[in-house]
C-alpha cells in the first residue's frame, strides 16, 4: 500500500461468525483464493446457535493485507462478525489444535513413546503390536514439539485439525 509502512509478515488467527447456510464457507474460501491469499488452517462448525457457524482460520500475511482481508470478509452478506483474534488478544489468545499421530512403537522405543506421550499429556487411543495411535491437543508449537521429540523416523501418519482459538477474559465474539 502506498505511503503505508510495509510491516512484517506474521500469522493471524481470524474468527468469523456467519450464517450456517450452504455456500457460506465457499464464499469465504473463494475470497481468499480470488485475492491470492493462502489459508494455512481452517475450521468451521455450528455454534451453540445452530443458525450460526464459527469459522476459524490462520493465514500468514502483513497487517495491512490482513486489514483488507477482514474488511472483505465483513462485506460477505452471510458474515455476521469478524475478529482478528491475534490483534484483539495481542497474541495472547487461547489456541488449541488436535492431532492424531500414528507412531511405530516396537522394542525399546515402545516404552519411550509411551513416556513421551505422558509428558506431553497426550492420550494413546489405539494400540497394536507395533503401533501406537496418539491423540494430543495444544497450540501449534506444542504439537510441533511433540513431533520433533518422537522423531520423524517413527511417524507413519499425522492428521492435524488446524487451530481453533478464543480470546482470553471477558471479550467474546457473539451476536
Amino acid at each position: 500500500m502506498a505511503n503505508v509502512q510495509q510491516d512484517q509478515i506474521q500469522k493471524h488467527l481470524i474468527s468469523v461468525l456467519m450464517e450456517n447456510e450452504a455456500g457460506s464457507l465457499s464464499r469465504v474460501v473463494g475470497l481468499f483464493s480470488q485475492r491470492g491469499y493462502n489459508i494455512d488452517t481452517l475450521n468451521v462448525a455450528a455454534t451453540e446457535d445452530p443458525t450460526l457457524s464459527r469459522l476459524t482460520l490462520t493465514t500468514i500475511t502483513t497487517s495491512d493485507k490482513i486489514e483488507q482481508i477482514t474488511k472483505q470478509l465483513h462485506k460477505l452478506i452471510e458474515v455476521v462478525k469478524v475478529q482478528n483474534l491475534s490483534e484483539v488478544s495481542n497474541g495472547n489468545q487461547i489456541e488449541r489444535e488436535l492431532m492424531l499421530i500414528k507412531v511405530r512403537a516396537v522394542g525399546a522405543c515402545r516404552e519411550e513413546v509411551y513416556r513421551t506421550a505422558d509428558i506431553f499429556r497426550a492420550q494413546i487411543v489405539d494400540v497394536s503390536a507395533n503401533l501406537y495411535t496418539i491423540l494430543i491437543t495444544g497450540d501449534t508449537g506444542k504439537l510441533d514439539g511433540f513431533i520433533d521429540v518422537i522423531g520423524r523416523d517413527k511417524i507413519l501418519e499425522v492428521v492435524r485439525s488446524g487451530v481453533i482459538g478464543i480470546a482470553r477474559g471477558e471479550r467474546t465474539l457473539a451476536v
Partner: protein
Amino acid sequence: MSGAELLVQALVDEGVTHIFGYPGGAVLHIYDALFKQDKIEHILVRHEQAAGHMADAYSRVTGKTGVVLATSGPGVTNTVTAIATAFMDSIPMVVLAGQVPTTLIGDDAFQECDMVGISRPVVKHSFQIRNPADIPTIIKKAFYIASSGRPGPVVVDIPKDMTNPADKFDYVMPNSVSLRSYQPTSKGHGGQIKKAIDVLLSAKRPVVYAGGGVVQGDGCDKLRELADLLNLPVTNTLMGLGAYPATSRQFLGMLGMHGTYEANMTMHHADVILAVGARFDDRVTNNVKKFCPNAQIIHIDIDPTSISKTINAHIPIVGDVKFVLAEMLNIIKGGDRRLDDKALADWWKQILEWRARHGLRYDPDTDAPIHAIMPQRVVETLYKLTDGKAIITSDVGQHQMFAALYYKYDEPRQWLNSGGLGTMGVGLPYAMAAKLAYPERTVVCITGEGSIQMNIQELSTCLQYNLPVKILNLNNAQLGMVKQWQDMLYEGRHAQSYMQSLPDFVKLAESYGHKGVKITNPATMEQELKQALEMDGLVFIDVYVDKSEHVYPMQVAGQSMRDMWLSKGERT
C-alpha cells in the same frame, strides 16, 4: 400461485417494468407466467450477454435495479461478462438464472451448470431457490442487497421444479428485509466529517476527485453545491463523468491514464484531495508510490474495503456520499470559515496556466481531402449537433477515450460506459436500454469497428422493439488502443491489431432493416453527420477516421500523475 407466478408477482411488487432475457427449457414456466400478464415487458435479445448489458444499462440510466432472465447452462453462462461488468462498476442488477430441476442437480444433467459457483467471484451475493414458497422473500432480499450499500449484481438460481405450474403456494411478500449479517452504513462518522472539514478548509491547493459512486449514490447535487460554495476545482473519473457539469469553469476534465493535463497536474500538486465515491483505480493513480506526494486525502466511500486499499486515506469516512456531503455542507454553511482566498486564487491561477498549455488540442483535419477525419473532431461535432444533451454510450478502446474527453457531460447518467471491467461490446446494448428508458432522448453509441462487432447481432433486437439509437462508429480499421500501445511500447509491432476483413457496415445495417451512412471526407463530415442524426430510425454512421491517431494525453507508465505524453513527440 405457482412458483413461476410467485416470481412474476414478486418482480411486479418490486417495481420491475422490464426484463431482458432469452428463453430456454429451464425457464419456460417463468416465460409462460410472463406471457399471461401485462405489467412487465420482456425484451428478447439475440445473445444473453446483451441481456445482461441491457439490464446493467437500464440501471445505470434510471437508477432502478435491472433484471436479466436466462435459461440454465449456456444461457446463463453467457451473462457472466455482463455480471462482472456490473460488479466492477457497482451496478444493482438481479440475474434470474434457470437451473435444471433439483432432482437432477449434481447429475451432469443436460444444460446443468453451477451458476452460483461460476458467478461467485463477480456477484455481491447469490441465492438458490430450494422451496417455491420462499420465492417472494428471496426476490425481496435480492433486490435489497443489489441496491443497498455498495450496489452490485445478485444471482437467483431457480431450479425448474421450483416453478412447476402444478404446485401452488400462497403469495407472501415481506414488507421489508432485515438481515442480521448485512447492515450497510449510510451516515458517516460525525467526528471524521468534522476532521475532514477542518483539513479541507485549511487547504491551499485543494481538489475534488469524484467517481462513479457520486452518480450511483445520487450525490451529484450535493457535490455541485459543495464545490461551488468553496470554489473547488473538480476532476471526475471515467465513471464519474457527469457527476459535476463538464461545462463549469471549475471542471478540470477526467483524470488518470488518459486524463487531461490540468486534471493530472492539479491532482499531483494538490495538498488536499477530497475523494468522493472513487476508488483510486490503477487507471487513475499510475504508480501508487509516486501518487500525489504532498496530499492529505479525505476519502468518502460507502464501501470500507475501497478505503486505503491502494492509497492510504488520512481521513476515511465510510458512508453514503449523499448523506456525508449533505452533512459537510450543513456544517460549512452553518459556520463562517472558508478557504484562504489568496491561496485559492494562486491555485486557480496555476490551474489555468496548465489548462492553457494543453486543452485537449489535436492536429486539425482542415486540409481535406488530404487528411483523414480526426476522431476528436467527430466527437466534438457530435457534441455540438446534439447540443450536449444526448445520452452517450461507448464501448472500450480509443473511441471510448475520445468520447470521454471530447463530449462534455453536464448531467449524471448521461454517460454510460464499462469503467471497471472495460468490456468491449457494451455500447450497443447500453444504448438500447437507454433508448428504452428514455424514448424521447437522443441516444448515441460511440463505438469502434472492433467493439461493435462483439454484440452487433443486437441490431435485430433494435428492429424488433423499434429502438432508434444512433451508432457512431469511429472506424480506423484496427484495434486502435491495442495498436497505440504496440506503437508506444512494442516498437510498432502490430500483432493481431488489424481488422482485415471488416464488413460493409452500411449494408449490414440495411440488412437488419436499418439505415447506414458512410462518412469519409473531413470537409463534409459535419453536414453528413447532422443529416444522419436527423434521420428517423436506427442509423449506423460509419466514419472513417485517421488510422494513425493516438489518444493524448497519456500517462507515462510507472510514473506519477504528472508524467504524461502530450502528443507523439512531447512529454511533460
